[in-house]
């Protein structure tokens, strides 16, 4: 790999280990995300996908290894600092603020940005990607449907102007048509707006459709990695994760 390409890497994890109490969840995860790409992190339940994202966004400190964001070691920094630097995490289960309005959810998403930032402009951009949020802007977020809540979770993360967007299981609990809709938007976020995305997903086939590169996690380790075509070409991947 040449140095020119290497400088493109926004996020690099090397040998990251992490644990919940005495339970080791990650046993040395190494991966790279390049500027402007979508990287998918696939794997079964409990493989360590969410844990990896939690380490990247600072919710969990790694016990060993390094997380490097744009050339700086960020391990151990607090989430609120990392958001300011551009690592924005849309967590599993959406975690929207149910008892405030859609618009307030979006405004709070921009909390880390400077006082005079163009919040209105960002909100219009988000509404461009998710027109339904504009219709529902005055509603309590809890009254949204599951798909709309997922859109709000992504829109809220976009309000922080991420340099890298961490999406945890955006298809969770949604009907297939809604999943398609969400992934169409994720695709255009990347291809049109140029947002770099690290995507965790159990639904491997939708994730591979949008990703440039993918890693497969198994019990806290990267089991294999490759381009979507390479992975689809492997019989073991097809059988374990794609179901054909």
């Amino acid at each position, binding site marked *: 790999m040449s140095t020119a390409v290497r400088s493109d890497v926004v996020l690099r994890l090397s040998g990251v280990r992490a644990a919940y109490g005495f339970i080791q969840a990650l046993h040395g995860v190494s991966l790279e995300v390049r500027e402007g790409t979508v990287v998918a992190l696939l794997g079964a339940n409990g493989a360590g996908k969410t844990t990896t994202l939690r380490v990247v966004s600072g*919710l969990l400190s790694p016990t060993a290894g390094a997380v490097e964001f744009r050339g700086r070691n960020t391990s151990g920094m*607090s*989430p*609120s600092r990392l958001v300011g630097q551009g690592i924005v995490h849309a*967590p599993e289960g959406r975690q929207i603020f*149910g008892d*405030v309005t859609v618009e307030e959810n979006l405004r709070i998403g921009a909390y880390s940005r400077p006082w005079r930032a163009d919040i209105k402009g960002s909100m219009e951009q988000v509404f461009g990607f998710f027109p339904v949020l504009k219709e529902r802007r005055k509603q309590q977020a809890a009254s949204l449907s599951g798909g709309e809540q997922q859109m709000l979770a992504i829109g809220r993360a976009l309000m922080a102007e991420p340099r890298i967007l961490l999406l945890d299981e955006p298809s969770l609990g949604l009907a297939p048509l809604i999943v398609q809709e969400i992934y169409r938007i994720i695709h255009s976020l990347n291809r049109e707006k140029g947002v770099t995305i690290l995507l965790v997903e159990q639904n491997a086939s939708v994730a591979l459709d949008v990703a440039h590169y993918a890693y497969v996690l198994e019990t806290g380790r990267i089991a294999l990695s490759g381009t979507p075509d390479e992975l689809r070409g492997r019989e073991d991947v097809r059988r374990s994760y794609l179901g054909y």
Partner: protein
Amino acid sequence: MDFDTLAQQIVSGVMTGSIYGLLALAMVMIFQSTSMFNFGQGEMATFTTFLAWGLMLHVPYGLGFALAVVIAFFIGAGLERGLIRLVEDNPMALIIVGLGIFLIFNSLGGSIWGPEPHSFPQPFAGAPIKFIGLTIGKHNLYLFVVAMVLTSVLYFFFRFTKLGLAMRVTAANRTAAELMGIPTGLMLMLGWGIAAALGAVAGMLVAPIVVLTPAMMFFVLLFSFAAAVLGGLDSAPGAILGGFIVAITQNLVGVYIDDWVNFLHLPFDIEDPNQYRDIVAIGLIVAVLAIRPRGLLGRPLVQRV
């Protein structure tokens, strides 16, 4: 039953109720953000009221009042930082800490200022105001106005400012708030500070009425707690509404229980109506909660996930 007496009792209930409301609001804020009942809220208020009393021997009322509010804010914020943060993940420990705060401030106040009552200054003394058949004490009017202004300021703060919104979402979902870049520890500290400051205001407003003693907030806290539960522990407007209802009920029972007992031909006499007002008031609240456990304005206990 004449209309003037009824109106009088309701109006004076609204005024007392605004104090219950302030303290109930403080408890709701703590319950929302930290999931605990701060039983010490009243004792903290008493403590800062004593401090204000000491200050007011040397400085004018307004300055003493303001200083006490600021001191209370730092006591509240300091408690969160130094004590609550150590045990915040342990619900059992939080209960004990709540009781501990009660005991610490109760005995601290007692040992510094002793049990004897002191009169607390009131800025508006003098003859009560007569207004369309109602008699309103100047101090009662004053405390009502202060309570309502304060409540409105807080409403606008939480509803329309970035910081207020950040505090609300921190209380609702701390991890998600953290992921928005909100320094959630600081938000909780601010919340504790504001709650303590509210308590201090309530204490200083109520002290001229109940006279200043280390135990003065005990019943105020009890009824404020009832108000918070009645209104719904997750509802700030509920806390204020609950305060009014509790106080009005107390007043009406105090005045009319004799009539009611006679009317119903119950086989006993009421010697001192005031002994019954609190029992009936709390009884009513229990009845309301039996029908509506979430309180009047609280959110349903079942949530969509």
